[in-house]
């Protein structure tokens, strides 16, 4: 019976070779050449390679801001989970807490009007502080001032520096002027000291690098002023 289907050849003695040499074809998918590696999701996966225990330790490092331990916590593994969700939590607290604070002050509760603009302003201010400003500072530090720290290290540090505000802004719901200023000042001190202490090694190199302290301090001050004068402003009824 002729077997048309198989490739059986005859060897030198005329016997049918039933086993053909098997050619192994190794399929290797070609790596996708992306024109913009920073735009892919895979690039950012390296920044989410942390565990819940790590996040807890990093927030603790930022709250105990006078100890320059942040780099021991972070190591070579800056993350973006912390900055993203800490800033989103702060946006929620500003939106809900800011309106709640005004509501507590309002004498005639039925006439209270909820301010939805708080949402847009909070998103703009907090994400600018958590991402845009550290990216710009990081680029300046890395490419102009020749720092060893990468851009994402700075973004990670800024994100965790905002963690103190999660607690401070909840306390700011209390509608007393002096209390709000006190809590905001504590938050400002904690956040600024955290950033300066951890960048101290970089800043003490020369006069130029020391100048980086000026934008750091001024942006933090601008942040708490915006918190106080927009979200937690106390409007007193004027007696005519």
């Amino acid at each position, binding site marked *: 019976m002729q077997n048309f289907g198989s490739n059986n050849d005859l060897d030198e003695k005329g016997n049918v070779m039933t086993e053909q040499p098997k050619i192994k074809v190794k399929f290797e998918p070609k790596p996708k050449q992306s024109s913009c590696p920073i735009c892919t*999701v895979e690039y*950012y*996966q390296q*920044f*989410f*390679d*942390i*565990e*819940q*225990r790590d*996040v807890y330790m990093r927030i603790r490092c930022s709250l105990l801001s006078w100890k320059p331990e942040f780099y021991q916590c972070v190591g070579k593994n800056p993350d973006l*989970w912390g900055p*993203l*969700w800490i800033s*989103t*939590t702060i946006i*929620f607290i500003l939106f*809900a807490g800011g*309106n709640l604070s005004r509501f507590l002050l309002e004498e005639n509760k039925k006439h*209270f*009007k*909820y*301010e*939805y*603009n708080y*949402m847009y302003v909070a998103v703009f201010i907090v994400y600018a502080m958590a991402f845009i400003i550290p990216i710009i500072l990081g680029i300046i530090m890395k490419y102009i001032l020749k720092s060893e720290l990468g851009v994402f290290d700075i973004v990670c540090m800024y994100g965790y520096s905002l963690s103190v505000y999660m607690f401070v802004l909840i306390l700011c719901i209390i509608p007393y002027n002096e209390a709000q200023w006190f809590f905001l000042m504590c938050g400002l001190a904690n956040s600024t000291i955290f950033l300066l202490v951890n960048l101290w090694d970089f800043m003490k190199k020369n006069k130029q690098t020391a100048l980086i302290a000026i934008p750091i301090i001024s942006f933090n001050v601008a942040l708490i002023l915006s918190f106080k004068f927009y979200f937690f402003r106390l409007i007193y009824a004027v007696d005519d």
Partner: protein
Amino acid sequence: MDYTNQKNPQNYSQMEDLKTLDLEESVSETIMRDLKMIAYKLKYVLIPKEQEDNGKELRNWDLWGPLIFCLALAMTLSFKADSTTNSSKSDVFAIIFVLIWVGAFVVTLNAQLLGGKVSFFQSVCLLGYCVFPINIEAIIIAFIGSYLPFVVKLIPVIICFAWSAYSSVGFMASLVPPHKKKLAVYPVFLFYLFLSWFSLIV
């Protein structure tokens, strides 16, 4: 094809068989069938006892259900919003709509970045279906909220928020490795907290 199950499909695959009959039936029949599919999935997602196969039913994701619940929530809240706020109805509608879709997108992206191997739309579908309890609480508060003191209004809000969060947390937590569960679950909690807060204040 089993025509005896045409009127009362017992499971999703039988519903799939019926799709070939689309062109031969009236519009109302098609719509009713789609609504039944949404109701079936809703029951599956929100009542944990139904999930005997560990969430495999969710592979048949659809975005109609999430869209309906999102529109219903946005319309309920914007309907009520006009009388109590400085912003117009359209502002509230836009905020809710964008919040739900962008929120679902970001929460799913977060789970994927943490190493979760899940289809993107499957997760968005689940998060959208779990918005249904928030819908219920928004309707309750919109219609009888003005007659109730604040503390009494909190009760349905907390119950519905807990229900939404509990339904979706099981799925989200199963996507990521054990040491990252809380990192995947916290954004879900924050998402439903945002939506619950909106339904409370409007």
